[in-house]
């Protein structure tokens, strides 16, 4: 169950060395992005932006109309999340990742403009993976269903665009030690393919 997978074996998620999390500052440096390997465990600290379905539709419309986006994608980390309302005194409510594939139609537009990382859950399309490799963007998986834990990693939150969308509004978040796993790196690694392949067995 270990190193039989060829490319990227150094990143095998069963390797303890790889599994101790690496602390990473946002915004992500291009060098750091290149070093990340599928299966790496990371703790992110710094600023990121949020957006999901409705916000992406507006990003695409803005690009088509030649208008400015509400944030500059270059070097940015984008988290696919629609949090629950914050209780008074809290920065944010429950804030786990949503399914990234629903953003596949739009993601290349942002990746081409320099987006450096996306955080979500679930597989990405081939078109997104090609764009990510070409433009130096990684896809990180946060663990869905840990929304209460993840909310504790968010130290501040403010709406920066589309406030009429409520939970789908674009927020600027500050996170500290936000845990994620590298799913798609710049070296063809894909944890959603390589991980299950290691553990697949014949049905008894």
């Amino acid at each position: 169950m270990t190193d039989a997978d060829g490319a990227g074996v150094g990143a095998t998620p069963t390797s303890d060395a790889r599994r101790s999390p690496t602390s990473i500052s946002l915004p992500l440096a291009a060098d750091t992005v290149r070093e990340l390997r599928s299966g790496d465990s990371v703790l992110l600290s710094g600023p990121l932006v949020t957006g999901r379905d409705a916000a992406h539709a507006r990003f695409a419309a803005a690009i088509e109309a030649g208008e400015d986006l509400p944030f500059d994608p270059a070097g940015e980390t984008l988290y696919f999340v629609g949090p629950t309302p914050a209780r008074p005194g809290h920065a944010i409510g429950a804030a786990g990742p949503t399914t990234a594939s629903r953003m596949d139609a739009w993601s290349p537009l942002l990746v081409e403009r320099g987006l450096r990382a996306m955080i979500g859950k679930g597989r990405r399309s081939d078109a997104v993976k090609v764009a990510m490799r070409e433009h130096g963007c990684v896809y990180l998986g946060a663990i869905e269903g840990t929304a209460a834990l993840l909310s504790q990693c968010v130290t501040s939150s403010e709406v920066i665009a589309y406030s009429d969308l409520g939970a789908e509004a674009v927020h600027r978040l500050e996170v500290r030690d936000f845990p994620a796993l590298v799913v798609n790196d710049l070296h063809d690694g894909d944890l959603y393919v390589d991980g299950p392949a290691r553990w697949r067995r014949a049905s008894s």
Partner: protein
Amino acid sequence: MREIPVDEVADIVRRLCIEANHELRGDQVDALRRARSREESPIGKEVLDRLLANAEVSARERIAFCQDTGYAVCFLEIGQDVHFTGGSLAAALDRGVAEGYRDGYLRASLVRSPVDRTNTGDNTPAMVHYDLVPGADVRLTLLVKGAGCDNMSALRMLTPAAGVEGMKRFVVETIEAAGPSASPPVTVGIGMGGTFDRAAVLAKKALTREPTGSPSPDPRLAELEAELVDAIDATGIGPAGFGGTVTTLAVHVEAYPTHIAAFPVAINLDCHSHRVRTVTL
């Protein structure tokens, strides 16, 4: 004739919405713990540890354990000797949902229609299924259903010739296609038989079986459930889809009479944040 004020129903729904979203039910925590003890992959173990830690934090902090606080699906088994008083039952169910989602700091996740995607603002309407049964009790089950896993569900009208083997292949195919998007380890509700629509409702209702992972009282279905657990776990998808030995927490199969020409199968997936509450009034 027993009279039940609809306001009482609204209060119960309000309470259940909050409880179901803030506190993972005991048998579901147990199912996660069993999964943790069966899991062999290091990442899978870590995912399950975090899910268990998340359940503790959400209950303590009174925060939803998943930000997708879902559709509020209500199953009502109404004794035919019951008379609801004080207004519309349907409106009371919606009122309970609206108040529960507001007071529990839960996300309003519903839009007016697939084409008018304006948020309804209070997570209504409730998705209600009514059954009339003998007696004077009312059994109310709330299932908080996330969309990520509902989106990966499937229904197929198999032929009798496809049989149980065809049904098992369809289940595994659905799980493989869902992969990480259904947030494994999943609870799988399967409705077999009836009509196109009946199979879908049975599948959703199958998810609400309590305790999670208890076998069907029908020995043939119980055997099928055990075989499906093995086949689903064999995919290697694992917790959160990162690879591992546990892909399902439970498979619940319900069957119903069907047509000589038919073998409808509906598969409704629920994520590891399986939120169900049942009360009897």
